[in-house]
């Protein structure tokens, strides 16, 4: 089966390209990024700040059921063109990695289909690879905590 989300990470380059096709109108896709509640839901995180305007800041974090900080990220929106583009900075302070610049392009394919491309630029190729390796280490933890949370609520 063809993979829906594609990642292009050329060796030795300090950038990354993520593309994904959605069975959604472009307006819907953009809304998932614009609306605070919706964004928090699909990202599976808590939003402490979310000022969706040019130079507005955002800050989100995820805590384990026991309250330990597992994931935290912050940044600022730079330019916003409805249903077309979001330019933002992003920094995962928990990992002590430098900020990255993200260009999100939204494009309609048909009235019911759209495509998102995320072009991310890092400080260096090494920093990019550091980030790419993160889910190796945090992925298992996150899955474990999520399972724990579900099990606790179903007791």
């Amino acid at each position: 089966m063809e993979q829906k989300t594609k990642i292009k990470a050329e060796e030795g380059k300090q950038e990354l390209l993520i593309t994904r096709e959605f069975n959604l109108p472009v307006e819907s896709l953009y809304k998932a990024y614009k609306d605070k509640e919706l964004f928090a839901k699909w990202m599976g995180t808590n939003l402490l700040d979310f000022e969706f305007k040019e130079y507005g800041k955002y800050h989100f974090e995820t805590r384990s059921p026991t309250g330990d900080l597992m994931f935290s990220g912050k940044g600022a929106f730079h330019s916003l063109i409805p249903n077309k583009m979001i330019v933002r900075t992003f920094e995962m302070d928990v990992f002590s990695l430098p900020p990255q610049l993200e260009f999100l392009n939204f494009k309609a394919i048909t009235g019911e289909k759209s495509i998102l491309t995320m072009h991310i630029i890092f400080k260096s190729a090494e920093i990019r690879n550091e980030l790419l390796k993160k889910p190796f280490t945090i992925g298992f933890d996150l899955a474990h905590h999520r399972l724990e949370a579900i099990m606790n609520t179903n007791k």
Partner: protein
Amino acid sequence: MKLRRDVFQAIADPTRRTIISLVALQAMTPTALAENFDYSRQTISKHIQILTECELLKQEQNGREIYYHLNSEGMKEIANFIEPFRKMWDDRFDKLENLMKDHQSES
């Protein structure tokens, strides 16, 4: 315990990436490899050693000569290292799609 070198640091070096692409075409002796570069034989040997330690290359004795091959297991590790990251985004985007489908049908 001997600390294994980082595969990703190994491929961050342009000379080592060139060595990998040369060996990918055919198994080569260190001498034949060194002929492709302006560096000293020792420098190339050092690079070969790092790549071997990272299990990206493997040696094969053929008569009096040592030939270097690509180690497909090690190369697979590089090809797969993006997968967890890709999967993380794929899951998030699946959620986004489902959420917005529900949202559309509600409104």
